[in-house]
């Protein structure tokens, strides 16, 4: 029973990793931009939610704070893209890497300056600490369950957006061929800004569960980035459902490792990633390059 529980916890943890990874995958997929500040932007979003929750009347809950943070984070993504990242594209892979690496340093130090290095947690209002008892020895926390469900909803929603709407068609066309996309009347820079805004909204959703599941402080961003990368690569570039599976694999590897020896949690996650990288270098569900 203990192992069943371990695997269930790992799968649910995978939902969190998939949320970390989805925004990263979205920005890479549409504008071929690797955002090294992705993890720090998730942490930034967590602090935005903390501040909003502290401004709201007590007891109004973190979900309301999340909803209010969504337009703010959209603005952050849109602004970063228009102000900085659009200027780094069209040339080489290196400029966007350096600029986002710079963001990472600036965000971490900015957060340390404003919020100090104290670790924090989002305020709980009740439901967050509840759990469901499924069978003897297996109980599922509400937060991991809702987190996993959120990942499924976010990915289903993004897939709908990308494959069923006019703007999604424009995303795919621009990803294929930015120059020809301009000939369709698509302003690719504005489209990239919208994509970055959407990616940051996903970061805010990830940040909610980051802050509900565990403590966080300004320095934990890069490790989240690493999990996100692993989930994307295990799943295969270009497939959001693959990213969810990738997150689940990393999550299960971590909880199984932790079950064997608590010190092994992070190690087994990375080992699972390395094994898959060796066996399937293009990930489990790669999108064939057209």
């Amino acid at each position, binding site marked *: 029973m203990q192992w069943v529980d371990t695997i269930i916890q790992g799968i649910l943890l995978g939902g969190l990793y998939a949320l970390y990874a989805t925004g990263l995958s979205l920005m890479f997929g549409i504008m071929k931009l690797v955002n090294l500040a992705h993890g720090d932007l998730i942490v930034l979003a967590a602090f935005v939610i903390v501040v909003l929750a502290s401004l709201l009347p007590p007891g109004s809950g973190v979900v309301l704070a999340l909803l209010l943070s969504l337009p703010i984070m959209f603005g952050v993504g849109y602004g970063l893209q228009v102000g900085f990242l659009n200027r780094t594209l069209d040339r080489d892979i290196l400029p966007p890497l350096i600029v986002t690496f710079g963001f990472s340093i600036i965000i971490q130090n900015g957060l340390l300056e404003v919020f100090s290095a104290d670790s924090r947690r989002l305020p709980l209002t009740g439901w967050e600490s509840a759990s469901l008892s499924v069978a003897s020895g297996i109980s599922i926390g509400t937060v991991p369950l809702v987190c996993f469900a959120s990942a499924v909803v976010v990915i289903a929603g993004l897939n709908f957006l990308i494959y069923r709407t*006019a703007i999604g*068609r424009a995303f*795919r*066309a621009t990803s294929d*061929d930015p120059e*020809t996309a*301009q*000939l369709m*009347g698509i302003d690719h820079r504005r489209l990239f800004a919208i994509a970055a805004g959407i990616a940051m909204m996903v970061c805010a959703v990830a940040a909610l569960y980051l802050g509900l599941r565990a403590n966080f402080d300004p320095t934990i961003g890069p490790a989240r980035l690493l999990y996100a990368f692993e989930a994307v690569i295990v799943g295969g570039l270009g497939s959001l459902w693959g990213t969810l599976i990738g997150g689940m694999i990393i999550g299960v590897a971590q909880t199984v490792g932790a079950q064997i020896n608590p010190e092994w949690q992070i190690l087994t996650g990375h080992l699972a990633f390395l094994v898959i990288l060796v066996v399937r270098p293009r990930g489990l569900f790669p999108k064939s390059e057209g």
Partner: protein
Amino acid sequence: MALLQTVKLTTGYGDFQALFDVDIEVAQGQIVAVIGANGAGKSTLLKAVARLLPVDGGTVRFDGADISGLVASQAVRLGISLVPEGRRLFPSLSVEENLQIGGYSGRRGSWRLAEVYDLFPRLAERRRHMGTALSGGEQQMVAIGRALMSNPRLLLCDELSLGLAPIVIQDIYTALPRIRDAGTSLVIVEQDIAQAMRVADRVYCLQEGRITLTGRPAELSREAIHAAYFGA
């Protein structure tokens, strides 16, 4: 007033100057052909008009307004659409999605999916296929249909017949007068001179980035074209 007018248009790629003081005019309702050898600057001219290339000198006027400072996505909104060399279909989009994305600019007019399928019935049967799974000729039809979906006032077609089977070229050239009659003026770039002369109201010949000959097809002698095309 001319729909399109370039005045002493000069452009190029970085340090390389590809066009020198090019003057062309396209009147409303005309089909204009631009002929010339490889590297003469034909595609460059279309790209400059479509605002994919910077104007280094002179002006591009569309419907009386100077559009030299616009970018391609703005030119589409004004009604200038380019069928690029090599078709350039979007590989992750189906035939129908390729056509739909052509309408992204939201310009309204008589060209919608149904009209494009009426113009090129073979595309209707293949609407669910991926664009890149089609034959070259069908891809060219998608590229033309995609450009028409923005309901352009001016359609620029680059190398329409390049690499296509003669029977397909025939189909495509039959469609051009229908497009013109529906209210769109055309500029076609073509290496197949005979094909261009048959359909065009006016011909410009480019050689090494300069206009060497212009006139109505009936007025131009074989010798004059030969001289303008290859140089004296």
